[in-house]
C-alpha cells in the first residue's frame, strides 16, 4: 500500500495573456489567428500562461518546493529511497543536474535517482512504482519532483493547448498520508506518430485524433479495473490542456457528466505537464473532502516523438 503524503507546487508570478501569446506565435505566418484566439479563449478558456523570467527563477522555484515538502513533512531525509522525475530538463538546465543537487542539498543520502520517461505522467508512474518498489516493512519514501520551463514560445504551442511553466513535488509514502492509493492502471495507444527512423507513420494529427477517444475508453476501463463507477467517485483529477477537451470531448466519449472533471485551474497558467495533476489535486483538497472520498487521477502522456501512454490512479482520502 502506498500513500500520497504531501503535495507542493509553485507557479511564477509573471503571466502572459493568451491572445498576446498567440499573436507572438503567429507573427510570421499567414494564419487565422483570430480563430485560434477565439478557440482558446471561448472553448479552452485559457486566459493566461505562467512564465518564469529566467532559468534562475525556475531553479529557485524547484528548490523551494523540494525543500518545503521535505521539511514540512517532518520525515527523516535518510528514509527517502528514490528521487523520481519525468522532465529531462531537470538534469541539464544551467549545465547542471537539479536532481543531484536536491539529493545532496536536502541530505537525501540514501536515495537513488529514478528518471521516468513520462513528461506528463511521471507522477502517476512514480505512484505505481512506489507500490512495487518501496519496502513492505520499513518506512520509505519516493520524492517526486516536476518542473516545466520552455526555451521559446514555439515549444509552448501544442495545437489545442499552450504549455505554461511551474514546479511541483510530491512525497509518496509506504506508511501514511493524505490519500491512500487503491489502484493504478496504464496502457499505451499503439499509434505512434513516427516510426523508429523518424519518418511519419500514423501522423501526428491522426494520433492526436484518437488520443481523446482512446483516453476516454481508458478511463472506463480504469473504472472497471478499480471496481468503481463515475458516480461513485467524487472527482476525476486531470491535467489542464483546456476546458473543452474534458468538458465537451472526454465527457462525451466516456459517458461521464462533465462536472466530474476539475476545471478550477484551466484559466490560469496553461498546461504545465504533470505539475497540473499535483496542483489540481492539492487545490481540490480545499473543497469539503471527507475521509473515504475517492478521486481518480488521470493523464495521457503525449509527445510527438512517441506513442501515447495513459495512466490512472484511484486514491482515497485518509
Amino acid at each position, binding site marked *: 500500500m502506498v500513500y500520497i503524503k504531501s503535495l507542493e507546487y509553485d507557479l511564477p508570478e509573471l503571466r502572459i495573456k493568451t491572445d498576446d501569446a498567440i499573436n507572438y506565435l503567429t507573427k510570421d505566418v499567414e494564419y*487565422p489567428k483570430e*480563430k485560434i484566439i477565439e*478557440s482558446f479563449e471561448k*472553448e*479552452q478558456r485559457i486566459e493566461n500562461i505562467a512564465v518564469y523570467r529566467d532559468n534562475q527563477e525556475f531553479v529557485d522555484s524547484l528548490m523551494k518546493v523540494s525543500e518545503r515538502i521535505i521539511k514540512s513533512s517532518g520525515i527523516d531525509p535518510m528514509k527517502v529511497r528514490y528521487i523520481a522525475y519525468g522532465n529531462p530538463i531537470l538534469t541539464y538546465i544551467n549545465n547542471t543536474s537539479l536532481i543531484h543537487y536536491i539529493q545532496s542539498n536536502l541530505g537525501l543520502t540514501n536515495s537513488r535517482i529514478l528518471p521516468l520517461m513520462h513528461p506528463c505522467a511521471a507522477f502517476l508512474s512514480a505512484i505505481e512504482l512506489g507500490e512495487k518498489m518501496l519496502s513492505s516493512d520499513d518506512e520509505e519514501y519516493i520524492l517526486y519532483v516536476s518542473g516545466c520551463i520552455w526555451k521559446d514560445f514555439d515549444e509552448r504551442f501544442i*495545437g*489545442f493547448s499552450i504549455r505554461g511553466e511551474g514546479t511541483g513535488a510530491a512525497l509518496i509514502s509506504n506508511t501514511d498520508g493524505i490519500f491512500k492509493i487503491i489502484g493504478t492502471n496504464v496502457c499505451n495507444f499503439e499509434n505512434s506518430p513516427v516510426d523508429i527512423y523518424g519518418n511519419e507513420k500514423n*501522423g501526428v*494529427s*491522426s494520433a*492526436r*485524433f*484518437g488520443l*481523446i*477517444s482512446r483516453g476516454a475508453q481508458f478511463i472506463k476501463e480504469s473504472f472497471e479495473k478499480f471496481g468503481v463507477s463515475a458516480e461513485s467517485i467524487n472527482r476525476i483529477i486531470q491535467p489542464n490542456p*483546456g476546458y*473543452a*477537451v474534458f468538458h*465537451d*470531448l472526454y465527457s*462525451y466519449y466516456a459517458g461521464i457528466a462533465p462536472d466530474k472533471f476539475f476545471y478550477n485551474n484551466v484559466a490560469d497558467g496553461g498546461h504545465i505537464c504533470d505539475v497540473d495533476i499535483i496542483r489540481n489535486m492539492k487545490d481540490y483538497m480545499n473543497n469539503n473532502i471527507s475521509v473515504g472520498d475517492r478521486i481518480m487521477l488521470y493523464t495521457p502522456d503525449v509527445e510527438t516523438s512517441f506513442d501515447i501512454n495513459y495512466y490512472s490512479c484511484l486514491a482515497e482520502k485518509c
Partner: protein
Amino acid sequence: MEKSDIFNKIIKVIRINTADESITASSSIQNDVGLDSIGWLRCLIGIERVVGIPIAPHTVFRKDIESVEDLCNVILDSLSKAGEDANVQ
C-alpha cells in the same frame, strides 16, 4: 432518413462548427474545412448526435475521404450497415 437529408444535416453541423456558411459537399476536408483536431472532434460529436451512430475519430483521415461529400458517403454506408445489423438482430 433520405440521403439528401443526411447530407444536409452533416453539412449543417460542419458549417456550425466552422462558422463558415460557404462549406458545401464539394468542399475539401483538408483545405476548406478549417478545423483543428479538437474542432474536428467536436464536429464529429455533433454529426454523431444528428445521425445517431458513433463515428470513429480517425474517419476524417481516411485516404479515400477528400471532400465533405466523401465523408457523408462513408457515414451513409455506416448508417446502412447499422440498419442491416439491427435487422439481423
